[in-house]
């Protein structure tokens, strides 16, 4: 059974009353434990597709299945519950909450899930140590480097052990060395814990690290449907 199944998905955005076709008849399946890169030029639809897989958006046509459950027509509240339980996000510009400390940022999803403070503390501490940011827990995002911020974002994305982690151009704002280190780290998580990882990139070096590459152009998949 595929973890993610996309069936005939199209997405049309209305920009200034003009329809913009972002995706056209996409069919793709993602298996559990995959480390998949979605690549293509800017405007090819990779971010839109990842948003649909990540239950952040709904398709104009077609169906999105996550663990055999059709999620494309669910209400915002239910989609939020799915995101909270099953998905982790790592954004291009990290998007940490500036008023919260590193620890609180990492623990945020656990807090949403209603976990006790002691369990939150225990998990965030262990994860931060693993990511090499254990000494930064009481700092605010503005007080740490961009590489450290990205590690915090990664820790936040995996602390609740989601089925699926989605990263959008997650190394675009990092220097090459830091980006490569981060990808190696995520790859290690993928190998050791079997986490499914999908990420959008147009960086050839990042593509090389993927076990599967899905190429997109003009809102269509041109290679790597799987």
């Amino acid at each position, binding site marked *: 059974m595929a973890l993610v199944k996309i069936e005939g998905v199209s997405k049309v955005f209305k920009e200034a009353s003009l329809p913009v076709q972002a995706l056209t008849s996409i069919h793709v399946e993602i298996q559990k434990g995959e480390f998949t890169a979605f690549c293509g030029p800017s405007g090819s639809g990779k971010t839109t597709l990842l*948003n649909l897989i*990540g239950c*952040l958006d709904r398709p104009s046509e077609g169906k999105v299945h996550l663990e055999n459950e059709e999620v494309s027509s669910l209400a915002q509240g239910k989609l939020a519950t799915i*995101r909270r*339980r099953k998905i982790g996000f790592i954004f291009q510009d990290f998007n940490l909450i500036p*008023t*919260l400390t590193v620890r609180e940022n990492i623990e945020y999803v656990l*807090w949403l899930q209603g976990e006790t403070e002691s369990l939150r503390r225990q998990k965030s501490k262990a994860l931060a140590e693993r990511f090499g940011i254990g000494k930064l827990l009481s700092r605010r995002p503005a007080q740490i480097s961009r590489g450290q911020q990205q590690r915090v974002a990664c820790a936040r994305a995996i602390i609740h052990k989601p089925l699926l982690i989605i990263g959008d151009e997650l190394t675009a704002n990092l220097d090459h060395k830091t980006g490569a280190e981060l990808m190696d780290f995520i790859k290690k998580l993928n190998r050791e814990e079997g986490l499914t990882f999908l990420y959008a990139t147009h960086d050839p070096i990042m593509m090389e690290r993927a076990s599967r590459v899905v190429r997109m152009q003009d809102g269509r998949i041109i290679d790597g449907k799987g």
Partner: protein
Amino acid sequence: MFLLKFALLNLTRNKRRSAITVLAVGIGLAALIFLWAFMDGSHEEQRENVTRLFTGHVQIHAAGFAKKMSAELVIPNRPEVLEKIKSNPRVVSLAPRSKCEALIGTTAQSKGIVLTGIDLDAEPLVTDIKKQVKEGEFLSGGEGKEILIGHVLAEKLEVGLGDKVVLMTQAMDGTLAGFAYRVKGVIHSGALPLDEYSAFISLASSQELLGIDSDIHEIAVRLRSRAEIEGFKKDMQTVLPSDSYEMLAWNEIVPEVDQWASYSNAIIQTMLIAVMAVIAVGVMNTILMSIFERTKEIGVMMALGTGPRQVVSMIFFETLVLEFIGIILGIGLAYLLVFHFQRVGILMTGFEDAFAESFMSPVVHPHLAFHRVLTSVKTLVLITSFISLYPAWRAAKMEPVKAIYHS
């Protein structure tokens, strides 16, 4: 705790804006509470003045006397009634009186007044009429016929201390009775009904004038406090059956005072809602601005799994925190203002005459009642919370994708 901390942190992002909003809430609330305290203080003073000046807390008459004021309507079983009232534990003092409508005049002028015969020993224990004699002296109770009149009446009659005035009224037997009196004292009470339309002679003298022997028309009663009035009336129901007696509380005798208080309260309540609505719009604006600035962040929070309800709770909590701090500030400020002006009073220069007509002294001492604070706070919380639902709803309706890519 997390929500509270998060709300506090969000409010510290733009400290100046949050501080201005808190100040607006605090000052608005303090102003309203103070206004209420000012009005309650002046009403309280009005009530105290009315009972102190001449009504006492309760007046007892023969049934129908208040309307007709006929000399023959004397209080039945006077000694027994006086005894029963005196023995009531709520009663501090009582003063027997006679009362009639009379014409007071000189050779040149005459005027209609209410003439009251007062017991010279008992009356000062119930009212402050004696203290209001600012020219001349209080009645002596001697053989000579003495009268106290108000200073406005004295001016209109063009009489002064020691001058003679003639009183004419209908006696109990229906005949026209009249005597000449010398002005012994002039009253300056500040209340027009006393200063222009009243005159006082001794009870014995009035009984002689009206031909009512030792009978009386009125018993003015002072209780331990105004709060005892209802209890006293209930106690006396069996002793003073309504077919023979009437018992009137001070506010039935002078209903204008309570009517004026109700009218003022209605105005303040309207102002309360209007001011609170303005404050609420200010709070809403702050929250809307804060949401607008955090659109991307709220989108990220939603992407991480924050549901619409949690977004509403978060925004609502921020409003509550702003309100709470503003309320604490407002109450503190109001208490300081009231405490200060309670001690020094507020001199209403230029309004002395208007105040005098309403039994008010021109120096108002605000009086803060807890239920007023509670009403103001409840109204503020209710209106602000209701209005804040709009920004909370707007935030919860955001689509995560649009919010994340909002610039």
